[in-house]
């Protein structure tokens, strides 16, 4: 038992002294962790908190880029991603992703964290508790990406179901195939193995593809396209929210990428620098590109640009130089502009650009490893794996193969899911509800109630 006497201040100038001799959460364990072990776990936990903070960022970006009449619904969807998504990952997600698996497909143990000693820190590694916390907030991120593309027209309860299935099954299976050691982890082309350090593909491309399918099944918002089929902008109602959201997401990314080192080592700050520079380069190149395309530095697009850079560097951040991070980010910043224009043209209505930012630039990040990798990020298992560093095309092929597998899996799963939802309880609100706004009809609430209406 832990010594309570030491928990209670003995009165010596308020010094709180505690000795943690035995477990309080979790059962006993053999290995006695070192200060470095504790540091590793505390650091990754803190990184996880930064990642969780991204939930607020996603909510703000989505809310800011859409209309006031739907703002309550948008925050409700994002709150759902955290609340339902994390519960789903707790129930089955973690088990499917990291549970023991006979074969390549799926894990089948530790549902609801059963039979896990959360406090057992292995030598030089993370305790199951730390791992679960970090993985759970990642899952919440993966699902919330789709929310933006489905904004302003999705039935709330249908979205809740999507969110649950995504975190309970679709995403965890991909994690099992990669970080969990399944299907994709087994690919080996002349020694080249997959590398997706923090999840450009596993997390963002997955979310982006789900976003695409959501937007596809829903169809564009009323008024988004003119009679002649030309796209008409529906400007967001609160740009400050959107950009505040971008800043918060950027902050969160300093947990997302550096935290994925899963250790408190000498490489953390280098990973952070790559993350920072890619975001900056992307923002700058988006500003230049959109100014050339439409004449003005459209801040909403620049916001997309910064996020595009962050998404792209998520895979290569541990394997490339700062200079190449600028290149990768810069390309993402150009890419995202044309991607947004493209999806607009083909009538995929994505109010916040989630497909372009997370889907397209997630893909770009994944293959950029095959082009620019020079350091061993502990996935690659070798130096100079990138094509431009003499590594040949093997790595590029593995990355492409990986992207293809993720694409197929998410297309099929979300296709079935959205199809079933559409056929049963329905995916889209009525035209009347969409025109009046979802807030009052779905939630009985106005986002911005006027004082007027309720005094006396």
């Amino acid at each position: 038992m832990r010594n309570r006497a030491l928990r209670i201040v003995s009165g010596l100038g308020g010094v709180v002294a505690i000795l943690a001799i035995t477990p309080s959460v979790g059962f006993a364990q053999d290995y006695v962790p070192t200060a470095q072990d504790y540091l590793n776990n505390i650091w990754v936990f803190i990184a996880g908190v930064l990642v969780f903070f991204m939930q607020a960022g996603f909510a703000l970006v989505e809310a800011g880029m859409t209309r006031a009449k739907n703002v309550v619904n948008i925050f409700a969807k994002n709150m759902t991603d955290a609340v339902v998504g994390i519960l789903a990952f707790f129930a089955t997600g973690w088990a499917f992703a990291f549970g023991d698996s006979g074969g390549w497909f799926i894990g089948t143990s530790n549902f609801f964290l059963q039979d896990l000693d959360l406090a057992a820190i292995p030598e030089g590694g993370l305790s199951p508790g730390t791992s679960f916390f970090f993985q759970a907030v990642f899952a919440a991120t993966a699902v919330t990406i789709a929310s933006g593309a489905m904004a302003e027209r999705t039935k709330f309860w249908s979205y809740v179901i999507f969110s649950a299935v995504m975190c309970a099954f679709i995403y965890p299976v991909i994690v099992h195939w990669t970080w969990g050691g399944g299907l994709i982890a087994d690919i080996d082309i002349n020694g080249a193995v997959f590398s997706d350090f923090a999840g450009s593909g596993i997390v963002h491309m997955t979310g982006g593809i789900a976003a695409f399918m959501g937007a596809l099944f829903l169809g564009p918002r009323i008024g988004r396209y003119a009679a002649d089929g030309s796209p008409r902008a529906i400007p967001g109602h609160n740009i400050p929210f959107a950009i505040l959201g971008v800043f918060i997401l950027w902050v969160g990314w300093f947990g997302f990428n550096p935290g994925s080192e899963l250790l408190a080592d000498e490489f953390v700050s280098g990973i952070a620098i790559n993350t920072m520079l890619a975001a900056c380069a992307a923002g700058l190149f988006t500003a230049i590109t959109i100014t050339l395309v439409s004449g003005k530095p459209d801040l909403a697009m620049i916001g997309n640009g910064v996020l595009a850079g962050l998404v792209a560097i998520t895979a290569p951040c541990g394997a490339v130089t700062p200079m190449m991070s600028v290149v990768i980010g810069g390309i993402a910043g150009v890419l995202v502009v044309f991607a947004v224009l493209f999806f607009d043209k083909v009538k995929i209505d994505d109010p916040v650009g989630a497909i372009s930012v997370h889907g397209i630039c997630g893909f770009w990040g994944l293959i950029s490893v095959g082009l620019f990798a020079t350091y061993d990020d502990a996935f690659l298992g070798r130096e100079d794996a990138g094509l431009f560093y003499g590594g040949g095309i093997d790595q590029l092929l593995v990355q492409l193969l990986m992207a293809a597998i993720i694409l197929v899996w998410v297309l099929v799963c979300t296709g079935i899911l959205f199809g079933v939802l559409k056929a049963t309880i329905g995916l889209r609100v009525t035209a009347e509800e969409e025109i009046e706004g979802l807030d009052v009809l779905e939630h009985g609430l106005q986002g911005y109630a006027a004082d007027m209406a309720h005094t006396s």
Partner: protein
Amino acid sequence: MKLVTAVIKPFKLDDVKDALKAIGVAGITVEEVRGFGRQGGHTETYRGAEYKIDFVPKVSLGIVVADESVDGVVDAIVAAAATGKIGDGKIWVTDVERLVRIRTGEEGTDAI
């Protein structure tokens, strides 16, 4: 009595208010409105897609005045609100059959 309605550029509101005060106007009711007119709007692009900002911000003033004061009020507004640039706005006058001050129940010009 007459109701003088003036649609002006927002940044002219203070000047017009002061001008009206100066000639003894006791009350004004103001609204933020959006105007469509010769001034036209902008065609802008948002995240790559075009949209028209057809309506430019304007401010509308409603002033109930005695018949004899109408000309003075109109002239004061024109003098204070005119910039000579397109979009300066309009003033129109309609007839008011009855005016009541809620506080006192006074009617007619006494209520102004």
